[in-house]
């Protein structure tokens, strides 16, 4: 980001629309693209609710936010028999008389005849109303980009600078449009380039100038805290580079972080995150009793090297790749899953993983990764899938129009679709050079193109190679970030960019530098998933308690405490099986098959339906809503999921009772199995008092069943925390 001399921020007023601030540009005449379109945008003429609507308004149509200046020029200069422009009598031009409401205008008076807007239009027409744009806008910068304030209600002025491809810059503050994502949180003014937070927290304001959008963050402390209280970042535990930016943000927001997680809390969390399982009772006991100061570090290493890690992360990768036998076929799914598994086991570089998928060829029944192309049914779908997966970007908006809130254009979308159109999606994945994808705007085959890049591809033998090279180049700004952001979410509970598949200029990361550092570290360590997971799990932020204080309870994105996350449906089902000591049967699969081992996400199972599993027909990035909580609880109460196994033959409860274990020890055992901890003294006393109410064994056994049932529905069991 370029930095600006201070005086730039000074009186923008005097720079308005004047040309003197651009060296050597004073001779330039006003042109349509750079001078007139911003006036129209600023006045709201080309907004979706006015002439920017798909059908225009009052017979006059402009492109949305001036996305297509050529057609706007056409509309203004040539349509309506040229009455919108009157070159011999510029003052009589409709384009001037309407918005100044010298004649009736449905949209009302947008600016005065004396205003700068009107004068610009007038001068432009007097100068011959040219389209002529020697200046080509490259990007814009906003200063400041991030506004940190220690209280609300402080107005801050912004300066917006346009950067042109020829190296010139211009102050365009006056002509930029500020939009607050939430006007009740940050106020923006139409007249002045000022933002004012009125509600605590982190908020986004979007700045638009011509086709460029930038998001700025406006941040105030989450809770009202007396100004004298300081929470110095240096006083917050710092285990590695991850903590540096997190701690800085906590300092700025005056968020006193919660303390370190107990060994129990850490143990349960890291087991669930790395292996999708709860630790066995015997392991929990030995871990809790160990005095090794290095035991957390050792545990992370050993879990990452375990077969359970491979199994669980293969399941997570299968979710990511939307592996479903319904679309692939049984045999193909097996081949695909085996390939995934071998990658996870060997911790192959994610760069190679992605390249192998994108460049896959051959018989998809034998060559697993070839099924990447059989997950979707056409080139456009594949474009959307691939961009969400590897770019973390929802390109689909650009199918029909240039994305108004991002840089992606329709050409990007259809350019990538044109690449994938060269792939024959049959059982045998091969290149078919005759394949094309129709661009809806031109109704002709779209030109092959790499997203966001001006390079048009020639019809090489396999155009995917260029795409793969671009995607996995070390300096690709999306690939590594999108991937580490997913890893972050899968361990920390929320993406630094959230949702994880919605990287957008207008959706900045909560901790942008951290995202960059994580991505760089990932690239520097061979795109190793295990490496990055270890880094995250070792951070102080990961190892904080999830128990929130009054102070941290409103924080859900700054990591002042660990987030409480509902268990994934399959993990939940497996955890129940492990605690009850009896596996659930899934269709014809052999007893003991775990839910995360099911290749088919539609394997008939009411439990998994009730728990809200992802069927992989779309993205599994966000937990599916699933049935309503009422349906879930009704099933917990009366369904088979818990009731069928509480005290059935072979269950943990029945075994313990058969061994003659004392009820209070049975309770302790269940605490260890479900919560990875011993009951507190208060809890033990409570349960003992309850147990004393029973004189017969059968009554007591029923009570224990009810105890186990209640444990399995408790908040601490059904969440990872």
């Amino acid at each position, binding site marked *: 980001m370029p930095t600006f001399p201070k005086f730039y921020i000074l009186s923008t007023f005097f720079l308005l629309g004047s040309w003197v601030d651009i060296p050597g540009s004073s001779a330039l005449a006003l042109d349509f693209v750079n001078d007139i379109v911003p006036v129209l945008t600023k006045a709201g003429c080309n907004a979706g609710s006015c002439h920017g609507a798909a059908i225009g308004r009052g017979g006059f149509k402009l492109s949305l936010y001036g996305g297509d200046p050529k057609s706007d020029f056409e509309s203004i200069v040539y349509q309506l028999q040229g009455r919108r422009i009157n070159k011999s009598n510029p003052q009589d031009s409709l384009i001037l008389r309407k918005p100044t409401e010298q004649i009736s205008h449905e949209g009302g008076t947008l600016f005065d005849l004396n205003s700068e807007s009107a004068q610009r239009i007038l001068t432009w027409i007097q100068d011959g109303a040219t389209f002529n744009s020697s200046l080509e806008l490259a990007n814009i910068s906003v200063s400041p980009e991030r506004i940190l304030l220690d209280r609300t209600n402080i107005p801050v002025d912004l300066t917006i600078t346009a950067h042109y491809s020829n190296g010139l810059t211009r102050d365009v503050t006056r002509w930029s449009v500020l939009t607050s994502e939430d006007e009740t949180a940050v106020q923006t003014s139409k007249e002045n380039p000022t933002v004012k937070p009125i509600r605590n927290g982190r908020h986004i304001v979007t700045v638009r100038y011509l086709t460029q959008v930038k998001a700025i963050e406006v941040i105030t402390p989450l809770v009202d805290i007396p100004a004298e209280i300081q929470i110095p970042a240096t006083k917050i535990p710092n285990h590695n580079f991850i903590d540096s930016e997190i701690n800085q943000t906590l300092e700025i927001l005056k968020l006193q972080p919660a303390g370190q997680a107990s060994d129990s809390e850490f143990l349960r969390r890291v087991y669930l995150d790395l292996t999708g399982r709860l630790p066995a009772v015997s392991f929990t006991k030995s871990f809790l009793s160990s005095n090794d100061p290095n035991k957390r570090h050792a545990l992370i290493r050993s879990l990452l090297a375990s077969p359970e890690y491979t199994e669980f992360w293969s399941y997570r990768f299968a979710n990511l790749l939307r592996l479903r036998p319904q679309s692939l076929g049984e045999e193909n799914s097996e081949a695909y899953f085996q390939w995934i598994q071998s990658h996870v086991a060997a911790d192959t570089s994610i760069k190679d993983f992605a390249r192998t998928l994108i460049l896959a060829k051959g018989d998809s029944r034998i060559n697993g990764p070839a099924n990447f192309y059989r997950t979707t049914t056409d080139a456009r779908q594949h474009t959307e899938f691939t961009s969400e997966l590897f770019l973390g970007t929802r390109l689909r908006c650009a199918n029909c129009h240039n994305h108004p809130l991002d840089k992606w254009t329709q050409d990007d979308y259809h350019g990538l679709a044109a690449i994938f159109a060269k792939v024959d999606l049959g059982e045998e994945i091969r290149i078919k050079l005759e394949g094309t994808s129709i661009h809806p705007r031109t109704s002709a085959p779209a030109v092959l193109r790499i997203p966001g890049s001006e390079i048009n591809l020639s019809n090489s033998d396999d155009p995917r190679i260029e795409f793969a090279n671009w995607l996995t180049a070390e300096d690709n700004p999306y690939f590594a970030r999108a991937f580490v952001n997913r890893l972050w979410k899968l361990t920390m509970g929320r993406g630094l960019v959230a949702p994880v598949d919605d990287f957008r200029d207008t959706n900045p990361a909560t901790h942008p530098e951290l995202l960059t550092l994580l991505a760089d570290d990932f690239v520097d360590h061979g795109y190793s998933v295990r490496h990055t997971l270890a880094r995250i799990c070792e951070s102080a932020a990961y190892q904080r308690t999830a128990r929130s204080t009054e102070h941290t309870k409103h924080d859900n994105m700054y990591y002042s405490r660990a987030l409480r996350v509902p268990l994934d449906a399959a993990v939940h089902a497996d955890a129940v099986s492990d605690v009850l000591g009896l596996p659930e049967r899934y269709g014809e699969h052999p007893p003991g098959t775990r839910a995360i081992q099911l290749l088919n996400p539609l394997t008939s199972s009411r439990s998994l339906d009730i728990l809200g599993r992802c069927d992989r027909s779309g993205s599994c990035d966000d937990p599916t809503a699933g*049935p309503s909580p009422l349906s879930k609880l009704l099933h917990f109460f009366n369904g088979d999921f818990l009731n069928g196994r509480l005290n059935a033959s072979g269950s943990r409860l029945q075994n313990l009772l058969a061994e003659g274990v004392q009820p209070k020890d049975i309770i302790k055992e269940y605490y260890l199995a479900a919560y990875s901890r011993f009951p507190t003294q208060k809890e033990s006393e409570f349960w003992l008092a309850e147990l004393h109410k029973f004189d017969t064994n059968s009554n007591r056994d029923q009570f224990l069943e009810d105890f186990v049932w209640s444990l399995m529905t408790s908040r601490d069991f059904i969440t990872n925390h």
Partner: protein
Amino acid sequence: MRNQRISRRDAICIGGITSLGLGLTDLLDLRRLHGVSNNARAKSCILLWLEGGPSHLEMFDPKPDAPVEVRGPMDSIQTSLPGVRLNECFPLTANIMEDVTLLRSATSPLGEHNFGAHYLLTGYKPTPALEYPSIGSAVASIRKNPGILPPNIAIPRFTNNLSGNGFLPPSTQPFAVGGNPQRPDFKVQDLNFFNGLDGTRLQRRRKLANAFDSFTAETDKASNVGNPDLERAYNLLSSEQAKSAFNLAEESSEIRSSYGMGDPIGQSCLLARRLIQRGVPFVTVNSSGWDTHNNIQTLKKRYATDRNAKLPSLDRAFSTLISDLKRQGLLDDTLVIVMGEFGRTPKINSNGGRDHWPRVFSLAMAGGGVPGGQVIGSSNPLGEFPQDNPVTPSDIVATIYTLLGIDPKHELHTSDGRPVRLAPDNAEIITSLIG
């Protein structure tokens, strides 16, 4: 505000300027000004959601005089309202038009199922920043429903296009009864005690589960004491009376067959009636199969003697619901709405079907204080766009809230405390729907 309503005269009076040009704010301010009481009658709402985008041209806005590629292969019939025609498959509805109001000028820019469903069911265009709640979920969160039955029920399930509750707590999500109400063995799953359990055991389990969560809440300030979902489930399970609401077998076979048995919509409407009768404020009947890209004729008949295709089934279910509600004295208290996410393309496509068309589409409303026997707005002669009185989904949703006695300016709060109005700022109440 909830018990105030603007009188029809006032509405017409203001409407004289432009029947739809009244901003929400104005109307509500006016209400306050006049101190007019709002006796919004609708206590409940039954929404017949026709998932997929029902064809306005084959239902409530036929174009008998248009060229055949627009008119389509079906005829239209005269109704009890002079000059108002419906598609030929609606003879029963045609007879009760004095109770029904058609809205023929709904318009939206969103022609994709997911987007359209969001817009129509929430009143807001979807944005990635925030998922808005559906009307039923908002009603569930506002109406402090003292009943045991869930306040927001979907039969047999809610549309897959949205969660329903949006930013509101999942507890306001529509409760899906599941199954197929027209099957003889239909019952809501998990309402009967598991083998060997009884009310006493369930009560103890509830107590113990609360004990666990209370221990958690002692150390975690973000954790609430008690589990409201568990409470709701427990209360429902321990009330035989509440559970019997779902038992269609209590209805006579005459009633059951009058609603129609061939398509799930018939028995779903009957179940909806049983639920609102017992005080449930919002019931969605979800009917799928309206996305007719191919052969539009199958809406009328799928094979030679078929009388259970979509249109005849809807006609039977809707008209029976209205007359049944009327007979039971419930129609004034119950707002019934028929709508989907958009209309269909005016020109029949090469597969004999119609594609998505949001620029104009129709709705039907009845009961709940909506004056019947009206047609509001119209589309142009080719059914392409509104000819007069265009209304947006935001306007429709704001009007529904108003009919239910809920101020559309009422603010809900997101989990991080952001206030959000029930209907967007620019929503305008459709005054002629408010009697």
